[in-house]
């Protein structure tokens, strides 16, 4: 429809930029794409400014706040002691949930949840479990008796595109910030958590004294690109996602091996070269994200 409405009527000269952007969003974008520049001033392959702060939620065992431009994600991990299942007596459990509360976007209202939230939830779970980021055996405390139930909750505080990428980064960062609480065995054989204050006056044996951090194997990172004609736009905003509907998400691990690739339909059929380009963009992005994560971690150690 926008094609037919292109400025041939002579309206465009008189119209203000903002109004034009709203009325003919696609042509507005296409004009920018001709100059290889996006309305917010980014080149096509560049991601938005990314920031990360660890330990944003003090009541959680591990947490991270991530911003990709205006997209904001808060991930927090809570550990609870549970009895492992009979099938896998020396493995813990992982529960990942992605939430989109009403504050994140005008389209979400109480009683009318976002359709995309459970989809992203599932994708996150797939990416984290299949990448082998967490070794579930490490979550075991006492074989057959006690293990950690790990709840990872990711809240989207502001939804402005590339939700999966930001959520995955937040979850990964929260895992690297995670510090496992100390536990000890009570007389009745029950596992109780020991908080920092009464650490000194508990004579009881601590179960996990030297296992406070999880070893993170191959960390997954991702990049979502919008495909439109021959253009590839990395890290799209919500506006870009809604105008150009073909999305392609690549998930790579830290050694650039492909974990997963999503292309949920869309009008653009991706050629081999396009997919290859997306992967190479993602490789670059992985390096950026790795650097941001290691900087945040080393900052924390200094403090």
């Amino acid at each position, binding site marked *: 429809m926008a094609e037919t409405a292109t400025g041939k009527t002579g309206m465009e000269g008189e119209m203000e930029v903002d109004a034009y952007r709203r009325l003919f969003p696609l042509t507005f974008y296409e004009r920018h794409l001709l100059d290889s520049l996006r309305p917010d001033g980014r080149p096509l392959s560049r991601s938005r400014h990314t920031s990360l702060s660890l330990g944003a939620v003090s*009541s959680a065992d591990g947490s991270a706040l991530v911003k990709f431009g205006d997209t904001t994600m808060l991930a*927090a991990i809570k550990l609870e002691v549970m009895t492992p299942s009979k099938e896998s007596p020396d493995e813990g459990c992982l529960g990942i949930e992605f*939430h989109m*509360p*009403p504050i994140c976007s005008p389209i979400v209202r*109480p009683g009318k949840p976002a359709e995309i939230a459970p989809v992203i939830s599932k994708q996150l779970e797939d990416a984290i479990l299949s990448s082998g980021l967490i070794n579930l055996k490490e979550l075991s405390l006492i074989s057959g008796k006690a293990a950690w139930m790990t709840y990872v*909750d990711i809240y989207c505080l502001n939804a402005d595109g590339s939700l999966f990428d930001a959520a995955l980064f937040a979850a990964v960062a929260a895992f690297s910030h995670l510090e496992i609480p100390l536990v000890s065995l009570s007389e009745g054989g029950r596992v109780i958590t020991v908080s920092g204050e009464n650490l000194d006056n508990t004579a009881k044996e601590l179960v996990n004294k030297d296992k406070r951090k999880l070893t993170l194997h191959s960390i997954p990172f991702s990049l979502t690109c919008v495909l439109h004609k021959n253009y590839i736009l990395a890290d799209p905003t919500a506006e870009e996602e809604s105008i150009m509907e073909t999305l392609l998400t690549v998930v790579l691990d830290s050694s650039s091996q492909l974990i997963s690739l999503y292309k949920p339909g869309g009008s653009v059929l991706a050629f081999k070269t396009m997919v290859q380009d997306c992967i190479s963009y993602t490789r670059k992005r992985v390096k950026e994200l790795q650097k941001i994560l290691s900087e945040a971690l080393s900052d924390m150690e200094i403090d």
Partner: protein
Amino acid sequence: MMYSDIGRLNCNISYTTFSTSIRGQGSDNKEFSAMLHKALEGSIILESFPKTTVDVFALVLESGGSDLPVIISCASLALADAGIMMYDIVSSVSVTCIGKNLIIDPTSEEEDHQDASFLISCMPSRNEVTQLTLTGEWTTAKVHEAMELCIDACSKLGDIMRSCLKEAASTLQ
């Protein structure tokens, strides 16, 4: 929805699953939502936006006691930030009574042991109370004492909120 020649206010409070010490215990938010609605309703000039609803959504990231007063003050700041016409900003403070002592701005632990509680929301520069709740047993003198304590705290909090808004407005320009 029915036609209305004044604006409507809709409030909703939710808790994150990690906000409380035991996962997923952020309950009674329906009651909180109703109380938030009452605290704010009196401060907004609803006549200034007929046929329109203003949604106030609050998300509690971490709960450490005195949740409701913080939510109310925060929501009022957000309304001001959104440019909604108001008579005045609403600041809110709660007091817990343990034994004979009044404790202002109680933590969760103090709230768990409270004998009585007192919550006030007011518009400081108009000296008007928009919301007031009280539980437990109180003598009139004690109510008086708590009221004075809270009103004073509300006006101080109101000053801080005001300067925060001014700062935000000046950095925008």
